[in-house]
C-alpha cells in the first residue's frame, strides 16, 4: 500500500506554524479534550473532523496542550491510517480492499477508480474533487463490494456505478 504518501511530512526547520484557521481548530480541540483520560485520539479526531486533516505544524501545540512530547504526538498520528497530514479533496471515497469484497470483484473496482481519476490511493484527483483511500473492511460483507463515500456506506457497487458516482462528484463545483 502507498502508506508512505499518507504519512505526515517532516516539520520544516523554519516552522511557519499553523495557519490561523488551523490554530483555532486545534485550540478548540485541546480545550474540549484535555481533561479526557487518554485524550490524544479524541483530540486528533476533533481536529480532523473540523479541518479534514491534522496539520503537521500543529504537532507542537497539541503536544504542549496535552503535556506530551512532540515525538509522542507524531508517533500516534503516523501510526493510524485514519489521520491525514494534508487537506483531502472535496469528497473522500474509501474503497474496501478486504477479502469479502475481493470475492465480489473489488480489484476491478479499484482499477477502474484509479484509472478513471488518474490517481493512486492517498491522492486527490486533479480537479480537487475526490481523494481515494483504501479501507480494510467496512462491515458490509454480505453486500460486497462496498465503498464509503464521505462517510456514507454503499453496497453492491459495480465499476459502472462507481464511474457514474465519480463523474457526478467531479461535476460538482
Amino acid at each position, binding site marked *: 500500500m502507498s502508506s508512505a504518501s499518507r504519512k505526515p511530512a517532516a516539520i520544516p526547520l523554519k516552522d511557519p506554524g499553523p495557519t490561523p484557521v488551523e490554530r483555532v481548530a486545534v485550540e478548540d480541540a485541546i480545550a474540549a479534550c484535555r481533561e479526557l483520560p487518554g485524550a*490524544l485520539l479524541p483530540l486528533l479526531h476533533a481536529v480532523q473532523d473540523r479541518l479534514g486533516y491534522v496539520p503537521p505544524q500543529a504537532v507542537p501545540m497539541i503536544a504542549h496542550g496535552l503535556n506530551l512530547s512532540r515525538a509522542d504526538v507524531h508517533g500516534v498520528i503516523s*501510526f493510524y491510517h*485514519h489521520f491525514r497530514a494534508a487537506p483531502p479533496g472535496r469528497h473522500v471515497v474509501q474503497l474496501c480492499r478486504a477479502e*469479502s469484497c475481493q470475492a465480489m470483484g473489488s480489484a476491478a473496482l479499484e482499477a477502474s477508480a484509479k484509472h478513471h481519476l488518474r490517481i493512486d490511493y492517498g491522492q486527490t484527483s486533479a480537479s480537487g474533487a475526490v481523494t481515494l483511500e483504501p479501507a480494510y473492511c467496512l*462491515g458490509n*460483507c454480505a453486500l*460486497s463490494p462496498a465503498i464509503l463515500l464521505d462517510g456514507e456506506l454503499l453496497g*453492491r457497487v459495480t465499476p459502472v456505478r462507481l464511474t457514474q458516482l465519480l463523474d457526478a462528484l467531479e461535476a460538482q463545483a
Partner: protein
Amino acid sequence: MSVTVFVPIDSAALSVGAGAVATRIVEEAARRGLELRLVRNGSRGLFWLEPLVEVATPAGRLAYGPVDAADVESLFDADFLLGGAHALSLGLTEEIPFLKRQERLTYRRIGLIDPLDLSDYAAHDGWQGLRHALALPPAAIVQEVLDSGLRGRGGAAFPAGIKWKTCADVVATQKYIVCNADEGDSGTYADRLTLEGDPFSLIEGMLIAGLAVGASEGYVYIRSEYPRAFQVFSQAIAQAHAAGYLGADVAGSGKPFRLHARLGAGAYICGEETSLLESLEGKRGQVRVKPPLPAIEGLFGQPTVINNVVTLASVPVILARGAAFYRDFGMGRSRGTIPLQLAGNVRRGGLVEKAFGLSLRELLQDFGGGTATGRPIRAVQVGGPLGAYLPEADFDTAIDYEAFAAAGAMLGHGGVVVFDDSVDMAAQARFAMEFCAVESCGKCTPCRIGSTRGVEVIDRITAGIERERNEVLLRDLCDTMVNGSLCALGGMAPFPVLSALDHYPEDFGLAR
C-alpha cells in the same frame, strides 16, 4: 386505523437504498391520504433481501424485498399495507427459512425493534438480565457466566467467566469494563449489527459485567470505519443515561457505572486487546507483552475486563434465562450460539445465529445457497484475514472451536467469506502477507519484517523463480512468524498462506 411499516435504518440496508425507500413510502402514503406509522428498525440480517420492508398485520409481520424506491408505488397499488400480494412478497418474516432455522438468542431483537426506543427494548425482554444480576451477589454473577460456558466471541474463544473471575479477584479502587468493537475482520458485521440494531443489549451486558467484577467505568472502542455505529451507540448511551441506567445510580441500585464510546482510527491491530488498551490510553496501538493480563493490569494500569461486543451482548440472556438455558445449546466445549456471518460471493448473505454443531456445508448450502455468481465454491475463508482457506473436502467440519482447530482452521469472530472457482489462491496468499505488512504494529520482528519478506517470496514463486526452493523458504518463514510473533497478527497471518499452499498448490505453479 394506522398501519405500522418497518424500513431498516441499518447501514447495510441504507447502503442499498433503504433511505430512499422509506422516503418514498411516506410520500406515497401522504399522496393517497393513507395513515401509516413508519418504524426505522435494525436489519434482520437477511441482507440479500435488503431493503426489506415489513408490514405489521394481525397474523404477524409480512415481508417484502428487496424493495427498490421504484417499487413503492406498485406496493401501494397491491395494498401491501393490508398484506396484499406483490411480486416482492416474502410472506411472514419469521417463516422465511433462512430466519426460521436459526436460534436467535443474542440477536433475538435485531430487526424487530427500533434500536433507539427504550420502551421497545424493555417490551422485548430488555433489562431482565440486569434485574436478575442486581439481585445476585457479584460472585454469583461470575458463576453464572462461568457455568454458561460462554467463550469470547471476538475470536480467541477464551472462557469469558475466567476473565471475569480473574478481574473480580483483584482488589482495586478502580476497575474497567472495555468492549472491543474494533471489528476489523473481513466478512464480519455482527458487532456492527448489534451497535446499530440493539445497542441497549450491549449496554446491559456491560452493566452486568461491571456489577460482577466491581467496575464503575466502561469504554466501548468502535472502529472509525463504522461512523454510523458510533453515532447510534453514542445516542444509546445518552438515552440510557437519561433513563437512569447509566450514571451515578444504575437502575436505582445505588451503584455507579459510566460508559464512554471511543472512536478508533483505522488500525486493524487495535482489535488485539492489549493494543486496543494502548489506543484507548491515547498511544500508538502497539501490542503489550502478556503477562500482566489485562484482567489484572489493563486500562490505565487497572484491572480490566475486555470482551468483544457479541460476548457482552450475550450476557443479558444468560442472566435472564439462566446459565443452563444457554449451555444447553451447542456441542462439546463450544456452548451456546454463535452469530455466523455469510459474506463474499454468496447467494444469500446474512447473519446466521445458530447453536454450535451445524456443519460448514449446511451453513454454505442450506443458508447461503451457494455462490452469488452461480459457479462452484472453490474456497471459503473462515475467521477473517488470519483464518485458513478451506477447500470443499473440509466442508463437513462442524462449527465448533475444537473441530475447526483440528482442521487447522479457526472460527474466529464467525465471518465466512465465500469464493467461487475464479479465485486465484496465490493472489489471496499474497494479500494475507500484504495485509499483515500494512497492519503490523511493528513491535516484533517476525511480523514486521516477515510479512514483507513473505510478499516477496510469494512473488518469486508465482513468477516462476526457483519455485520449489522458494516454497521451502516460504514455509520456513511462516514457521518463524507462527512461533516467533508476539500476537495473533503475525502469528496467524501465515495460516491463510499455508492453507492456500497446501490445498491449491497449482495456483502457485507447484505440483500437487
